């Protein structure tokens, strides 16, 4: 499919050049990370911008750091980043900041690098740890501190994490340190992002790293453990665009902000659920959403 799309875009580009048709459209490269929500956002942004008359290319399914450096190098023009990731992972900010402050700070820090953070959406896709509702109740765990107590009290709990979180600066190691516990290495299972949900559902593990906006959390009857020490910052989903691109097509900011305004946790989680639980096609879900809001 990807190949066909690529061939199609090459042909259309060639056609556009030879026919020298309507004033050459701006070429926009939309990037995205390697999990459902990001694939949805990539597809949504690409279809939306295409409808607005841009010539769009997509680069989906990258790891955070790879995507970010691709954007810094100008290979990706726009993608949806999370404020918390921007602060901690790319700018090494250690202090705790509120939602608004965090956004302001990361916007200021990234501006000199030529990256512009547009309006943040209301969706906060923070990291969270989830357990099966009945098991959590049985063990009396509702907060992350309870979890730390249980582990320190000798309970053998197995955690599923994706590759990235385990090694990130705002990931497992600092998290475990903040809550004062340590799991033995063989009680941490690392796997592909989407699998942690399956692993928890099928009792392969006791705790899973999840994204707060994932539709499988309610669908599989998971409970999120409350972050009672406030370890995780806000991860507001925000479109980030290269300054050069904004300079050459200034109306892009307004257009993306329109999309950003529509997103909040409920919207994201139901969109994610259509893909992960109801198994609908990502580009269909994205298109339906855009059509419903009259964007295409």
């Amino acid at each position, binding site marked *: 499919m990807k190949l066909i799309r690529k061939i199609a875009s090459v042909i259309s580009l060639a056609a556009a050049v030879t026919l020298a048709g309507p004033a050459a459209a701006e070429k926009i490269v939309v990037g995205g990370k390697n999990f459902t929500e990001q694939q949805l956002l990539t597809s949504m942004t690409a279809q939306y911008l295409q409808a607005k008359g841009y010539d769009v290319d997509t680069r989906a399914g990258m*790891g955070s*750091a790879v995507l970010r450096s691709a954007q810094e190098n100008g290979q990706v023009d726009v993608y949806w980043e999370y404020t918390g990731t921007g602060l901690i992972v790319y700018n090494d900010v250690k202090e705790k900041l509120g939602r608004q402050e965090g956004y302001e700070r990361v916007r200021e820090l990234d501006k000199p690098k030529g990256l512009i953070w547009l309006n943040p959406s209301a969706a906060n896709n923070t990291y969270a740890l989830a357990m099966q509702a009945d098991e959590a109740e049985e063990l009396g765990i509702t907060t992350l501190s309870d979890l730390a107590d249980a582990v320190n009290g000798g309970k053998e709990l197995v955690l599923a994490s994706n*590759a*990235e979180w385990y*090694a990130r600066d705002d990931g497992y190691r600092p998290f475990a340190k903040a809550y004062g516990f340590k799991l033995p290495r063989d009680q941490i299972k*690392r796997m592909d992002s989407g*699998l942690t949900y399956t*692993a928890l559902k*099928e009792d*392969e593990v006791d705790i899973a790293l999840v994204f707060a906006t994932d539709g499988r959390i309610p669908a599989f009857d998971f409970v999120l453990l409350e972050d009672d020490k406030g370890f995780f910052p806000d991860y507001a989903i925000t479109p980030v665009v290269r300054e050069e691109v904004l300079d050459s097509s200034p109306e892009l900011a307004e257009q993306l902000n329109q999309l950003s305004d529509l997103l909040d946790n409920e919207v994201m989680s139901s969109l994610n659920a259509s893909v992960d639980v109801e198994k609908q096609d990502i580009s269909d879900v994205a298109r339906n959403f855009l059509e419903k809001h009259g964007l295409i």
Partner: protein
Amino acid sequence: MKQLQQSRYFQIPMLIVVFLIGVYLQRSGLIDGMLFYWEDIVYLTKQHIQLTLISGSIAIAVGLPLGIILSRPRFLHVSEWAMQVLNVGTTIPTLAILALSMSLLGIGFIPSVFGLFIASLLPIVRNTYTGLLGIPAHLKESASGIGMSPAQMLVQVEIPNAAYVIFAGIRTALAINVGTVPLAFLIGGGGLGELIFTGIDLFDTEMMLAGALMTALLAIVVDIIIAACTFLMVPRGVNPTRA
């Protein structure tokens, strides 16, 4: 003697080059960076070896008898057909095999072992089968001429003569196996893939190299071990490495 001296002229500059590469790596901080993951490296290498050993031995345990059975005259009419089925099995990308075995067996260790077993089965069966069929007719004739039963002929004539080819198959299979284990990470099977894939996701070259170099090292060690087995276990008369 002359040969030895020549090789010594070659060895000394080689040693210096290796030493300089080592110095460079140390000074650039790459080795320190990789040693930061030492705990992970040890733990994951153990898992990696486990996965290879278990899936590899099952593949040998199944592949050898299967290859022998298929080469018997009685089964020759189905054997090409069976071999095609195995061929098709190998053309499916390993990642897809892993994904399929995940949907059958869940996630984690067991589906990984199953996927790796499938991936390394074909070379073993194929080489056993080809090796046994390639035994010259006159050897078999003289064996039956001195009154050997088909079973004696298999054990005393055919297998020893085909041993070198069979070992080559095992060697290929295990090399593929070690190199494929990193994919097991994607279905929660562990192994050095954890470092490789996390390294790629986070753009952390040291982490990725820590995983990749260990994988390469394991592949070399496995290859040396099988080569040594071939050297020792294939009978002198038909062993090109000992001629």
